[in-house]
């Protein structure tokens, strides 16, 4: 097979379609949700957009951090690959960019994302291919993941705790993609 050219992804900038909460106008509950004081300047537009609904912002962010950063279980780079697979299927270019770069950073290699962006599945290990294929099938509406996907993950050496971690990483990106893409644009 021919060599796959290695890519470097430049960060994208996300801009909301709707006006974010301005720090000066934020309610006490919105400020508490953002965990900042009114004098703080650097709160991202994404956080300020979602802070319009502080209840869901706090609950989802807590769950998101648990799923993506929990100790032990599935290696973090594999969670990032699940997130990337979901983001590509859901058409969230911004999320795909962020989590492709996270994968490259955590794995210390651009091999996987280069293969993926070049459409070269043959460049993926069996384990990475199993993760990605499962992420795509679980992200479909309705989900099409079946027993063969679970078997492939188990064959790649994953136990039930790790597969559960992967399910959650894919699913929380089904959520994040449905915020990031519909509520803004990236360039």
């Amino acid at each position, binding site marked *: 097979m021919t060599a796959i050219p290695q890519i470097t992804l430049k960060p994208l900038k996300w801009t909301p*379609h*709707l*006006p974010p909460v301005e720090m000066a106008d934020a309610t006490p*509950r919105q400020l508490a949700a953002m965990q900042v004081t009114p004098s703080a300047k650097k709160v991202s537009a994404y956080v300020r*957009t*979602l802070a*319009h*609904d*502080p*209840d*869901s*912002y*706090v*609950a*989802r962010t*807590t*769950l998101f951090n*648990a*799923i993506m950063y*929990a100790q032990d*279980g599935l290696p973090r780079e594999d969670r990032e690959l699940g997130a990337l697979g979901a983001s590509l299927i*859901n*058409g*969230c270019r911004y999320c795909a960019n962020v989590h492709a770069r996270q994968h490259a950073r955590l794995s210390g290699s651009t091999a996987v994302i280069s293969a993926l962006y070049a459409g070269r599945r043959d460049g993926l290990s069996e384990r990475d291919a199993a993760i990605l294929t499962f992420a795509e099938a*679980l*992200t479909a*509406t*309705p*989900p099409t*993941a*079946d*027993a063969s*996907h*679970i*078997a492939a993950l188990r064959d790649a050496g994953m136990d*039930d*705790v790790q*597969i*559960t*971690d*992967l*399910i*959650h990483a*894919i*699913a*929380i990106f*089904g*959520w*994040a*993609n*449905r*915020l990031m*893409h*519909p*509520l803004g*644009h990236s360039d």
Partner: protein
Amino acid sequence: MTHRPDAISLAAGLANDSPLHTVRSFRPEFVEGAQACRAAVLTPEDDLGLNPELRNAIARRVALGADNPELLSGYPMPKTAELAALAQGRIVTTPALIALAHHTDMIAANPGKATAADLNTLQQVGYSTAQIVALSELLAYVCFQIRVAHGLKLLERTK
């Protein structure tokens, strides 16, 4: 070990003695976090003018796409005719609900298709920025729940 079933384990149809309860107990923050999210999108402290009946109806409409009766049963059928129609995936008649139904169906099935114009449509029928954010979180939560339940069901069946 006794446990009170959470919405995800109910939606996944996990048996009381399922070994997956032990697997899930390794990540209590996922179980509790998902329950907190469910409360935050269905019955938040500040509902931003979107009452729990409307929120439940939207959630049920999204849940219809899952082909999962246990998950669907977590969203009771609304009593009023218009919200029942929304919840059953049927045609609704008021402009605000027409726009909401259309947006819900698109984001659930094909979020990549969404553009700024879709948010404009919601604004034109009267939804505020905060309400659009809250609706986005609500329907995306159900999409999350559908996928966790689907994955856990597969794990349970392939033991």
